[in-house]
């Protein structure tokens, strides 16, 4: 049974967590994620979930306690944003290396400094090499859907990795949106019961976890993580297909929007993809073959799918909501350009940094990007590879 409701992104994620009914949630407040822990606490206080809620004293402890809980054999979750994720940095790597299926929403917010509370992706991008799976959500519906699927992805025996579910701070987390929620029983059956393989509370089989790995084994264990990430690509697609059966919404690694015959395309994560699709539609009406590619999964990186989706395009703009300070563009730009390199067909790839610290991405910005791409396509010339959108220059 599906019901249309009006919820904010945070409410939708909290709703998903309630339906998943995890064994342990350890979390700490931080804007703009705070509502999730608040709402979830009320579910705990009212007996609507069976969860042990651990109100920790920091995000570092939030992830540390989630690791302890997951290692203990529990289905464990946390949630955070920005500085909180930065504080967790160390232990996120450990969660991945211990192969613990911890699901955690991250409400994307700019990293300090200067301090700012609004959206960009600098927090999530900082953890892109940590070994966790990263899902991105365009709107509250996707955030809700991703949360439910994340449990299945994380706990799959071939994967066993943490999954970070991203959504844009305030833009998605605090804006009321209409979405379809699935009934409790269906979600419960979909996520199933977590059956841990290796866990501390197995009285018959004591286990040592987090052991000291020297140069003779560390490398091999890191390689195992890569294999789990490879396996995750197939698992994510499979779970996406199964999810379609209960929701009517199918998810893959990427979303291709009008790319089949596109000449120019934009690659963008999260909520800005909505804006981009709107502009693409307008341009299509004017005869410009515009398309949009929205990676739903950023780690593992869906290289083959992206290459396939963009192979016929003449010019691509990658929109990054984070800086790398490499002076060579944003993080996703490097990945996309690398992906297209092997095609050897001279697709022009340019980069736009946008929206840092919550700066709005306006329709005219996206129109400008498509216009630039059209010029590149026509002239075959790129004047500036990396540009800023909406910056006072």
């Amino acid at each position, binding site marked *: 049974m599906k019901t249309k409701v009006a919820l904010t992104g945070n409410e939708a994620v909290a709703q998903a967590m309630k339906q998943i009914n995890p064994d342990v949630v350890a979390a700490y407040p931080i804007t703009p994620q705070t509502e999730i822990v608040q709402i979830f606490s009320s579910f705990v206080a009212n007996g609507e979930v069976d969860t042990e809620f651990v109100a920790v004293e920091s995000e570092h402890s939030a992830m540390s306690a989630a690791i302890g809980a997951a290692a203990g054999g529990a289905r464990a979750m946390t949630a955070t944003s920005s500085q909180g994720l930065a504080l967790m940095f160390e232990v996120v790597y450990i969660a991945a*290396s*211990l*192969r613990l299926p911890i699901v955690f929403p991250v409400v994307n917010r700019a990293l300090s400094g200067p301090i700012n509370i609004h959206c960009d992706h600098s927090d999530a991008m900082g953890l892109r090499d940590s070994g966790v799976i990263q899902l991105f959500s365009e709107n509250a519906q996707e955030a809700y859907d991703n949360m439910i699927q994340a449990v299945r992805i994380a706990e799959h*025996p*071939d994967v*066993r990795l943490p999954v970070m579910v991203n959504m844009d701070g305030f833009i998605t987390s605090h804006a009321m949106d209409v979405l379809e929620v699935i009934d409790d029983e269906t979600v419960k059956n979909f996520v199933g019961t977590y059956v841990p*393989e*290796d866990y501390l509370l197995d009285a018959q*089989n*004591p*286990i*040592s*976890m987090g*052991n000291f*790995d020297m140069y*003779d*084994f560390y*490398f*091999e*264990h890191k*390689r*195992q993580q890569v*294999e789990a990430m490879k*396996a995750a690509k*197939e*698992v994510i697609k*499979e779970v996406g297909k199964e999810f379609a059966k209960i929701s009517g919404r199918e998810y893959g690694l990427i979303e291709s929007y009008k790319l089949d015959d596109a000449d120019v395309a934009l690659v963008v994560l999260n909520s800005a993809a909505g804006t981009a699709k709107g502009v693409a539609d307008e341009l299509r009406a004017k005869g410009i073959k515009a398309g949009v590619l929205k990676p739903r999964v950023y780690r593992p990186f869906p290289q083959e799918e992206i290459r396939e989706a963009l192979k016929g395009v003449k010019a691509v703009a990658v929109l990054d909501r984070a800086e790398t300070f490499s002076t060579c563009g944003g993080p996703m730009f490097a990945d996309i350009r690398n992906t297209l390199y092997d095609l050897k067909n001279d697709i022009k790839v340019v980069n736009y940094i946008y929206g840092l610290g919550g700066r709005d991405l306006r329709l005219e910005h996206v129109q400008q990007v498509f216009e630039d791409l059209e010029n590149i396509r026509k002239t075959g010339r790129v004047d500036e590879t990396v540009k800023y959108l909406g910056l006072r220059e």
Partner: protein
Amino acid sequence: MTPYNPFNRNFGSGTRTKAVRPDMKWHELTRAGNIYEPGNANTYETGDWRSIRPVWNKERCIHCLFCWRYCPDASVIAKDGKFETFDYKHCKGCGICAKVCPVNAIDMVPEDEIEKVKEANKDEN
């Protein structure tokens, strides 16, 4: 989907853990570096760190077990509440047992003199 399961959960349990070698391939090792055999460190011998060894004097021993209590390496083996033997595979020769013994029933003897001591004990017995 291709079935994919390179990791055998039971690999590394029981005696097979001892078979973990530095030349093993990544997919042969236990997942996440988990260790499934509790206390298997006892298959790793630290006895060769020792330059002096504790030698028990049966006659003097009053079985107070202070040596057992204060051994950092669990290398004093007690049986039925009495001193039984030293575990020379793990004893590092720190000398704490000899020091805490209230009746001087433990002598610390350089390893190179051990053979001589064995001979001497034979003569005494």
